[in-house]
């Protein structure tokens, strides 16, 4: 049976949902799935062991994994990967940064953004920002190395208790040419963009950072996460980690609200797997209406407060 290794993504002591979604993709390839957790203590490995479908969690605890630095992780992952037929990482900035270094060490071609499993070696992936879908086949006998487009796979349940194997740091050369300085993250009480079932996004039409308060109020009423278009991030209304789209986060909530977003192709690439897309824009010709399930031509400064109050 194909032996699959999923590389866990974690941040701030928590396993990120992208890991579970990647395991979901793996479960469509094989029943033999292990997770590799590289961290500076083993508490994260225990959390990974709860993800359904996982057989073993391989935990390597080392100070050098305090922050995820790809040039340090890659030789370790490549060494562990030797025992596996298929290595999967989430197609987040973490996985995109790390996977190609593994490709180089193993001398294996990598598939980016697996969006569906069509057969044990056949996958679909988006190209041209999702405007075309490529079906690819990996040659027999070749290791599979891929990143998984997390918006295409649901998170699995957390009722498992897989074996946790505490492994030694393999004897590989780990470089010291890359030093982590800091990370600046916006702390928010709202759900994560990648996890939230409802996402409310604002674009250039929102006009200012202060006006985003309208969206936050609506979001808090709906238990929603708040995102933004590239235009809103570029204008400085909100920080970059809120950006939804081809260059930001690719999401698939059940319900997506686009307020004052014109609908540039790069933004649509990030939301088109959403269940229901609601677009509010005062420009009746905005391209966002072409893909919206429900559209309203309205002034969002009147519309949002009214919607917020009527949901109360």
């Amino acid at each position, binding site marked *: 049976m194909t032996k699959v290794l999923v590389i866990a993504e974690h941040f701030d002591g928590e396993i990120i949902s992208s890991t579970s979604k990647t395991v979901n993709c793996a479960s469509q390839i094989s029943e033999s799935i292990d997770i590799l957790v590289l961290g500076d203590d083993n508490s994260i490995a225990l959390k990974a062991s709860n993800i359904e479908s996982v057989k073993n969690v391989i935990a390597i605890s080392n100070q050098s994994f305090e922050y995820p630095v790809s040039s340090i992780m890659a030789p370790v992952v490549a060494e562990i990967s030797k025992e596996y037929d298929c290595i999967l990482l989430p197609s987040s900035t973490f996985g*995109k940064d790390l996977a190609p270094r593994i490709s180089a060490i193993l001398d294996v071609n990598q598939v980016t*953004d697996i969006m569906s499993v069509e057969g044990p070696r056949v996958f679909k992936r988006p190209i041209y920002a999702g405007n*075309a879908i490529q079906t690819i086949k990996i040659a027999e006998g070749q290791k599979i190395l891929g990143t998984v487009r997390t918006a295409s796979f649901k998170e699995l349940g957390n009722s498992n208790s897989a074996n946790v194997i505490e492994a030694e740091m393999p004897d590989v050369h780990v470089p010291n040419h*890359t030093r982590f300085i800091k990370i*600046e993250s916006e702390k928010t009480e709202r759900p994560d963009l990648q996890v939230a079932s409802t996402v409310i996004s604002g674009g250039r039409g929102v006009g200012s950072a202060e006006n985003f308060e309208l969206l936050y109020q609506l979001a808090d009423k709906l238990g929603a996460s708040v995102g933004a278009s590239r235009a809103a991030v570029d204008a400085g209304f909100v920080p970059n980690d809120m950006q939804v789209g081809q260059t930001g986060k690719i999401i698939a909530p059940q*319900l997506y609200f686009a307020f004052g977003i014109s609908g540039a192709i790069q933004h649509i690439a990030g939301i088109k797997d959403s269940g229901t897309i609601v677009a509010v824009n005062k420009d009746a010709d905005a391209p966002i209406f072409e893909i919206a399930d429900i559209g309203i031509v309205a002034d969002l400064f009147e519309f949002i407060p009214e919607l917020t109050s009527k949901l109360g």
Partner: protein
Amino acid sequence: MEKILVCIKRVIDYNVKIRVKPDESGVVTEGVKMSINPFDEIALEEALRIKESGNAAEVVIISIGPDDSQQQLRTGLAMGADRAILIKHDEEIEPLTVAKALSEIVEKENPGLIMMGKQAIDDDSSQTGQILAQLCDIPQATFASKVTIEGNKAIVVREIDQGLETLDIDLPAIITTDLRLNEPRYVKLPDIMKAKKKILDVIESSELNTEFSSSIEVINVAPPPPRESGVMVNDVDELVIALKEKGLLS
């Protein structure tokens, strides 16, 4: 540093609405406007700014692709690059092969910094820079939104899913560039004239040691499944009703 090497790819211009070929073998490129991959253009702009600030002596651009890629290299020379190299190869190439071919040039040119876009907007792979970094055993800073050169180090701010990360990396290194790093300059007519006199070396891919092959076979390329057409509503009340009908509001 002496030299920055910037890798650029010829792609369908980002304003073009792409069309899938009827036989599903790929997308239509005949008669379609081609440009420098926009992320690579940002990389080139950053390299030129580093040179203009006195931190580099020369900016060399390189591309791998069909002979027509010379057009994009000429544009890069007009932007201000000093010379260009084309590795001529007509077929589609996987990032691993591209990186191997580039590593042969890196060995010869010995740049102090290598830059390229964080991904190409055609295959969206986002691999080449990182593979090249590993092949050369040097640091990488991907998705860069701020680059500061400090002697033989670079301080790079990266746009990652969790926010803005800052890395301190030794040079030589590879930096891949994100959208917010800078806004590339416009090319002026006199610069286009000047660019015609700059050196553009063409190397046949067969002259390299790299084997141009792949274990990934493209079976087909199809348009994405269309979304069902939506409805327009007139006000908040109609929206609330529509969402309740879909079971999205209680």
